[in-house]
């Protein structure tokens, strides 16, 4: 009996994996073929190879500008998150603060509870009253607030794992806390900072809801919002522009994902991807 059952099991497993491969590959076929197709249609097909679709992006008034906006918002948020999180994580790692762990837990809890969906109305109101509607700064501050708790949590781990002896000798020679942080601690935790920066860039790059609510001016909108308007605005969608733009806009995320998962592995992603 056992060999038969074993064989059936093997066949069943192969069939299941083939189905899984088909299910996950099917929607992606279009992204692989249409950008290079001279006559892209909505159906995925073997392309009549061309790079003209990427040239069509140059003629679209918003396409390339939106990638620049994505870059500004993503890098702005990453810079803010890394700077503030490094300062806070260092202090929380090195100073005796009563209730420190409880504070970190509450912040972490809040960052997963107060999502864009749950705080849509107040975030819009806040941005309106602070004159942050239609500004990159508004998007940067809103998204950074949500990313900071997890960033502090992870960087504190990095800081905890570095020895304090260098800092102590720097202090003996009269360095100020700021100098110690800049010249001694930062170089030691550089891999952690790079990881947090890439994670923040990837997170902001894909964000749709917050910029969609906070930006009305298409000249300020990031790639996520412009792509959405490209396929929802009236008239026949320009498939050459949409396909080439989708691919160009996706590539950085894939590259960053490979970078972070090589560096930090699954635990990192499993924990804080939202």
């Amino acid at each position, binding site marked *: 009996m056992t060999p038969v059952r074993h064989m059936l*099991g093997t066949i069943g*497993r192969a069939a299941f*994996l083939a189905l899984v491969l088909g299910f*996950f590959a*099917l*929607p*992606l*076929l279009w*992204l692989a073929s*249409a950008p290079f197709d001279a006559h892209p*249609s*909505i*159906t995925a097909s073997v392309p009549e190879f061309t790079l003209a679709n990427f040239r069509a992006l140059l003629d679209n008034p918003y396409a390339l500008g939106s990638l620049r906006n994505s870059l500004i918002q993503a890098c702005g948020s990453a810079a803010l998150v890394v700077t*503030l*999180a490094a*300062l806070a994580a*260092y*202090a929380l790692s*090195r*100073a005796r*603060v009563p209730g420190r762990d409880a504070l970190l837990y509450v*912040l972490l*809890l*809040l*960052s*997963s*509870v*107060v*999502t864009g*969906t*749950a*705080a*849509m*109305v*107040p*975030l819009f109101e*806040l941005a309106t009253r602070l004159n942050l509607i239609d500004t990159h700064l508004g998007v940067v*501050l809103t998204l*950074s607030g949500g990313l*900071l708790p997890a960033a502090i*949590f992870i960087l504190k781990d990095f800081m905890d794992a570095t*020895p*304090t002896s260098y800092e102590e000798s720097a*202090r003996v020679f009269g360095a100020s806390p700021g100098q110690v*942080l800049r010249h001694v601690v930062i170089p030691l935790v550089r891999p952690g900072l790079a990881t947090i920066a890439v994670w923040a860039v990837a997170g902001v790059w*894909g964000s749709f809801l917050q910029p969609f609510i906070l930006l009305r001016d298409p000249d300020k909108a990031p790639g996520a919002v412009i*792509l*959405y308007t490209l*396929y929802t605005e009236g008239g026949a969608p320009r498939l050459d522009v*949409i396909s080439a733009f*989708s691919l160009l*806009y*996706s590539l950085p*995320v*894939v590259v960053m994902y490979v970078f972070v998962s090589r560096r930090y592995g*699954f*635990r*990192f*992603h*499993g924990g804080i991807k939202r």
Partner: protein
Amino acid sequence: MARAESGTLGRRPAVGFVLPALVLIGVFLVFPALWTVYLGLTDYRLTGLAAADPQVVGAANYAEALGDERFRTSLWLTVQFVLGSAVLGQAVLGFAIAWALRDRRGPLKSLTEGLVLLAWILPSSVVAFLWIALLDRDGGTLNAILHTPGFAWLLDHPMASIIVFNVWRGTAFSMMLYGAALENVPPSHLETARLAGASTLQQLRDVVLPHIKGHVLTNLLLITLWTFNDFTAFQLTAGGPEGRSEILPVYIYNVAMSGGRLGFGAAVSFLVLVVNLVLAFGYLRLLRSRGEVRPS
């Protein structure tokens, strides 16, 4: 490595270092949460009289929501969405893939994992359009394959469409979590069970499940929280047609942002916030009881 001892930084510089981060978190995370509570008790609107001079109306928004057919429909659709796409879809499919790949090595495993992961990491605007193209009525790849030209998946079965979409979108997390969890199951236990004549289902129930119980709970709580708050379905159907796929995040957007009823939208947001809080507390208690302090 030896853990650094606390106390090499004085209290005053420490406060100065923590303060900027706390201010930003306070203004853009804590304050909005509290403000939701207050706004939810008012009749605040985007335009008109109630925009200039909003009145506190107490629990009237909540009473109205509970009596509103559209809200109750949205709530029910959300339950279907979370149970169907996260609990049944992502968790079961993710486990099945992890189980099927557990002792595989080589290109087939990398290819499968790579594709499943790609669905997870691509930006939401991109995957939403990929599915609109796949399900398109006239030229969609799915209709071409099934020989069902003209079948309007997104119009006739909007709920089923976004559920299957979200299974595709989010299975990667469950697959990786269960993949890691299955490595904790001693192969000798499985071998013994197999020699004793246990079927695959019996092995899963009696040998595997006891080892991965904690992972299953973690997985279910997190994907429930994420799916409950996910806005990507908006980019596929915008809640339509006629509100037949209007899950709560889309409902809040349509009512508050498009409809301008900010106070009412905030009241519904507050309900989302409470559900999130319950799920997150459950997750934290779980981590504590397993002695893990990392947020993973």
